[in-house]
């Protein structure tokens, strides 16, 4: 009897230790996650497409919508059709058009319509500059550019074209930059600056509203290559065989954060070539794909405001001296002020209204309007969900 009891106690203790250790994978304590849980908002955001005057356009799981701030009304621009949801969209404020990408039976289809939803047409051109026929549309970016994969005109497979659409005649995807001959590589991510995805392609300029991008590629074996582009050239970022989560630049320095939480720094590439970014710090956090990384500078210190995978940490701020790529690098969790509603949310898109003023769209918890007064301390405000202005 005593032996049986001892056996039962030993087994249950071992089971307890086994399962308790499982919780090591959790992002926060179980009851803490529960206590911090938020009621979901019925809107499932995917992307803040852009602003046209007093109108905000956004993409949700149900389709494309227009919120008119002057009349406080929301109207459907394009409702999702079964099996053909809109994945990505671009707002062309010059021509009052919305370009969007849907799944058309296994292939990406590009459509164009007026901002009121009328005049919807499918873009049917088969011409992509410097690529042979048979190319595959991979992505429509919020800045209106397309990422296309194919074989270039000299037969190099796995080439990637960043292009813009020209109505023509003839209608075609015109080359901005071509990255040719990446055999065995496929797209891992196209990274744009948080809050500034809708800015035009170019070297960083907050007067003309241009921002660069980083294209990351990966092999089936897990080898990564990363290329910085301002739309005029590609510049390889070497010695960085990791998946990138996000980046930030002020036009002088470039800061990169990997999904496994390492911060790297570099000068901004001035032309084609290659650079090996300098490791700055292991941030001891995990980051999601296309993570929120928003930079601000004050008093000689640059602050990268980030959202990690640790659900109940609101925002995670990484600070270092302006334009340095050396230590010290300090980190701090901010959960008050501008970050007060950012715990247990999944940021899917951000839109910078002006420096430090952002709309933050979340997957399940609605849209927030935040004002960052002091990135380091949390000073600022947060309104919402679903209580925002332009």
């Amino acid at each position, binding site marked *: 009897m005593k032996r049986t009891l001892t056996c039962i106690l030993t087994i249950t203790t071992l089971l307890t230790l086994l399962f308790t250790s499982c919780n090591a994978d959790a992002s926060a*304590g179980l009851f803490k996650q529960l206590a911090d849980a938020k009621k979901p908002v019925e809107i499932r955001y995917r992307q803040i497409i852009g602003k046209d005057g007093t109108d905000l356009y956004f993409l949700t799981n149900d389709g494309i919508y227009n919120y008119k701030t002057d009349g406080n009304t929301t109207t459907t621009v394009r409702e999702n059709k079964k099996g053909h949801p809109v994945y990505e969209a671009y707002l062309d404020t010059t021509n009052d058009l919305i370009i969007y990408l849907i799944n058309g039976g296994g292939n990406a289809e590009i459509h164009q319509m007026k901002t009121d939803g009328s005049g919807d047409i499918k873009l049917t051109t088969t011409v992509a500059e410097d690529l042979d026929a048979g190319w595959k549309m991979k992505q429509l970016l919020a800045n209106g550019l397309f990422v296309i994969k194919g074989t270039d005109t000299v037969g190099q497979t796995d080439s990637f074209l960043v292009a813009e659409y020209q109505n023509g005649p003839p209608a075609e995807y015109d080359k901005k930059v071509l990255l040719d001959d990446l055999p065995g590589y496929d797209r891992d991510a196209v990274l744009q600056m948080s809050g500034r995805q809708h800015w035009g392609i170019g070297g960083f300029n907050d007067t003309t509203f241009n921002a660069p991008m980083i294209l990351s590629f990966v092999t089936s074996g897990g080898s990564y290559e990363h290329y910085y582009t301002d739309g005029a050239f590609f510049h390889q970022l070497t010695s960085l065989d990791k998946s990138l989560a996000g980046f930030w630049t002020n036009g002088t320095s470039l800061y990169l954060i990997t999904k496994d939480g390492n911060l790297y720094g570099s000068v901004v590439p001035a032309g084609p070539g290659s650079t090996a970014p300098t490791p700055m710090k292991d941030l001891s956090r995990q980051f999601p794909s296309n993570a929120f990384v928003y930079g601000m500078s004050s008093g000689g210190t640059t602050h990268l405001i980030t959202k990690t995978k640790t659900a109940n940490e609101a925002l995670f701020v990484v600070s270092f001296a302006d334009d340095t790529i050396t230590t010290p690098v300090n980190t701090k969790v901010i959960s008050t002020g501008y970050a007060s509603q950012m715990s247990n949310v999944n940021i899917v898109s951000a839109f910078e209204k002006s420096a430090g003023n952002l709309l933050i769209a979340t997957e399940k918890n609605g849209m927030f309007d935040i004002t960052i007064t002091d990135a380091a301390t949390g000073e600022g405000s947060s309104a919402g969900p679903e209580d925002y202005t332009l």
Partner: protein
Amino acid sequence: MKKPLTAILTLLVLSSALFAAAPHYDKGSQLFSFKVGTTLPTFTYFFGSKDLKGGLGEGKTGMQVGGYGGISYQVFNTPYTAIGGEIGYNFNFAVDKELFTAVPFYAKYSYLPLQGKWEIPISTGLGFAYIKYKDAQLMTLYTNLEVGVTWYPGEHWGVALNTGLWLIPEFNYNDALKKDNALAGFVPITVSVTYRQ
């Protein structure tokens, strides 16, 4: 709060004294129970921050009213006390519509001061619970105190209404999670069908 508690305890002691002389059960008698009902998340106390979150919903425990089902078996070791065990399944939806689940399995000790057509079982349990919510899951300790009123219209089958308090602690070994160590309390309200022999 103190007065009703004193009244209940007095009643139990009196009923115990009244009916102690006529036990229905012998040593070796058995009870089989099937239980279903609801659970009310009552509080969560965080040891690190000393923060007490009470009640249902957002900004409190984060949980909604849930459900529980369980089976138990007990055997009398004296005419008034029984030992045994219970295993059950509990769920509560969180405010974010994710599911919190708990599978308690525990040893149970019951005292039945009032026996016969009407019974008042008072039970305490100690054991383990496997709990899960989103990316967190662990096996942890579990304890409870329950009281019920059982009515036996016949010799063997009875129905009961039960309530009490469950306590589920969360102790994390991971340094990063230790600050979230907590104790959660639930109030179950259940009906059960019991077969006695």
